[in-house]
């Protein structure tokens, strides 16, 4: 441009506007993409080749074991024994298929398993209502999920003899049912409880603050496994002889409080990220401290910490496996006891059981992770700053 080329020879006034033009065409196509992303430099090329090599080493044996050499049907150990089949045997999925009811329900009485099925259906319904962001009447959905559903589930699973549902002691509950119940209680309790603790920790009242700090630091300072042992072994010693707390409820409470403490710190991070102007804007309109929190601060603060919340949920979901150590028959424990069944004594049965467990946990955790990414993208798209 002449006008900007140093010394002003003559004044410049634009007469003909420069129209907006499309950007220059990028070199497209898969070859260009590969060159740009995989082989742009020597390091990049080396890393790409190393990754390909690694995949080549891992994938074929994994697929051979899980799929090509796998046994899909069978009634007992003979189906999965190489000396009977006369070929190498991979995963023994027949074992999983044969034991699937045990993995899902544990020792829950067979004639009452429909109740667990109804529970799963109610859960799926509630989850769909809550997770589908454009669903109608999500306020009703929340009421259902946080009030109606827990009560109905308890009545269904534990039984109410007065309503014709015979009681099922928790010692018979097991499998995925227990894993889901334990993590669901942890997930549902820890968020509201964690929010309250986080607010308490930022309270202006010193007593409230102190109580919250002590609570949070206590639970964060103790390993979960210790909490579970305390709940199952020590707690009964402190209670009067005639008072008993259900053996599933005790670790359940422990896990809920434990995860609440972690959630509190995550939420506190979000609260601290809120600019002071948001508080002032809300207060200047006459919104009191509670309404300010509920309508202005928390919706934004929680949105900021979605990755942290989901991270904590994923950790919690996997940590529920620890309840198996204090004698609760969760999903892992059912696999542990099924894999030593002499009827299914075959070389790959144990590995298959663990592979099945890994698949189960991975699907749930990956699902949570993807869902949270989806929510983040949705929220950031709807109010781009």
């Amino acid at each position, binding site marked *: 441009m002449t006008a900007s080329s140093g010394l002003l020879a003559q004044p410049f006034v634009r007469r003909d506007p420069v129209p907006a033009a499309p950007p220059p065409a990028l070199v497209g196509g898969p070859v260009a993409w590969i060159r740009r992303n995989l082989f742009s430099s020597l390091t990049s090329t080396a890393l790409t080749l190393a990754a390909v090599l690694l995949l080549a080493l891992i994938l074929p044996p994994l697929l051979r074991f899980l799929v090509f050499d796998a046994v899909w049907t069978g009634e007992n150990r003979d189906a999965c024994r190489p000396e009977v089949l006369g070929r190498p045997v991979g995963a023994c999925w027949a074992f999983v298929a044969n034991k699937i009811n045990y993995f899902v329900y544990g020792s829950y009485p067979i004639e009452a398993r429909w109740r667990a099925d109804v529970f799963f259906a109610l859960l799926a319904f509630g989850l769909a209502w809550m997770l589908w962001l454009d669903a109608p009447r999500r306020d009703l959905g929340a009421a259902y999920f946080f009030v109606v559903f827990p009560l109905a589930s308890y009545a269904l699973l534990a039984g109410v003899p007065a309503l014709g549902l015979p009681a099922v002691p928790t010692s018979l509950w097991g499998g995925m049912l227990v894993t889901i119940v334990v993590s669901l209680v942890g997930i549902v309790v820890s968020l509201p409880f964690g929010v309250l603790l986080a607010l308490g920790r930022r309270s202006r009242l010193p007593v409230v603050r102190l109580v919250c700090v002590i609570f949070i630091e206590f639970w964060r300072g103790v390993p979960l496994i210790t909490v579970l042992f305390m709940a199952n072994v020590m707690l009964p010693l402190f209670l009067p002889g005639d008072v008993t707390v259900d053996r599933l409820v005790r670790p359940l409470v422990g896990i809920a409080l434990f995860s609440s403490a972690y959630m509190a710190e995550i939420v506190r991070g979000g609260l601290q990220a809120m600019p002071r102007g948001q508080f*002032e*804007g809300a207060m200047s309109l*006459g919104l009191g401290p509670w309404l300010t929190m509920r309508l202005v601060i928390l919706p934004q603060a929680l949105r900021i910490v979605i990755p942290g919340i989901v991270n904590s949920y994923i950790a919690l979901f996997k940590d529920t496996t620890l309840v198996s150590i204090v004698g609760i028959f969760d999903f892992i424990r059912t696999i542990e006891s099924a894999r030593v069944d002499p009827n299914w004594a075959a070389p790959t049965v144990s590995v298959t059981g663990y592979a099945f467990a890994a698949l189960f946990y991975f699907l749930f955790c990956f699902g949570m992770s993807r869902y949270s990414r989806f929510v983040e993208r949705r929220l950031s798209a709807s109010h781009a700053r």
Partner: protein
Amino acid sequence: MTAQALPEIDPDLAPANTSVTRLAAAPTVVTLDRVNKWYGAFHVLRDVDLTVRKGERIVICGPSGSGKSTLIRCINRLEEHQAGRIVVDGIELTNDLKKIDEIRREVGMVFQHFNLFPHLTVLENCTLAPIWVKKMPKAQAEELAMRYLTRVKIPHQASKYPGQLSGGQQQRVAIARSLCMSPKIMLFDEPTSALDPEMVKEVLDTMVGLADEGMTMLCVTHEMGFARQVADRVIFMDEGQVVEVNTPDAFFRNPQHERTRLFLSQILH
């Protein structure tokens, strides 16, 4: 709208004389009586006295750190004063939370950085307080909000989020949001300082319109053209004290205090 326009204003148009008669019979809405405030050991407000009558428009100016923002933030208790009395609309500001919320309902505030709620649409920003504080039915609150959004000339942006608007538009939404609570007094804390130069006028025009309708206004601003056009009184503060109070005409034409003269010579170049 800056001070360059100053010399061209006809002194006869200045509101100095008219405001005296207009306000003579008006009741007092804000009283500050020897108000003092400290940030730690720093004395930010020193013996500030001020009486504001209904319908009065006051512009507060002064160098940064002079306590002018702190002063108006004390009026709706975003800052707490430590000595002296503040009475707003007959209610004395104490630690009574009920009374504080009562006063905040009567006093609207517009901030330098708008402080709109980014997670709510423009319309929701405006209806939030009427619905939750005044318990107004949603439909009625939305009608009210649309009326004020129309008045600040952005009704067509109602369903957008604040982040999608320009600075000037955001500030006008903030004004509409305050007006939805039908406040008796409006506080403006440097409402145009964070705006691009091209957006200042649209916000000032909105404020002038508000003044013309008789709103009681306290504005911390350096827009001297605005002060000349609408203010009944200009207050100049320095180091936490009120240094000079005068009609805008006399204030700009014939500043009395040496500090005022220095300040004006710095900003009216």
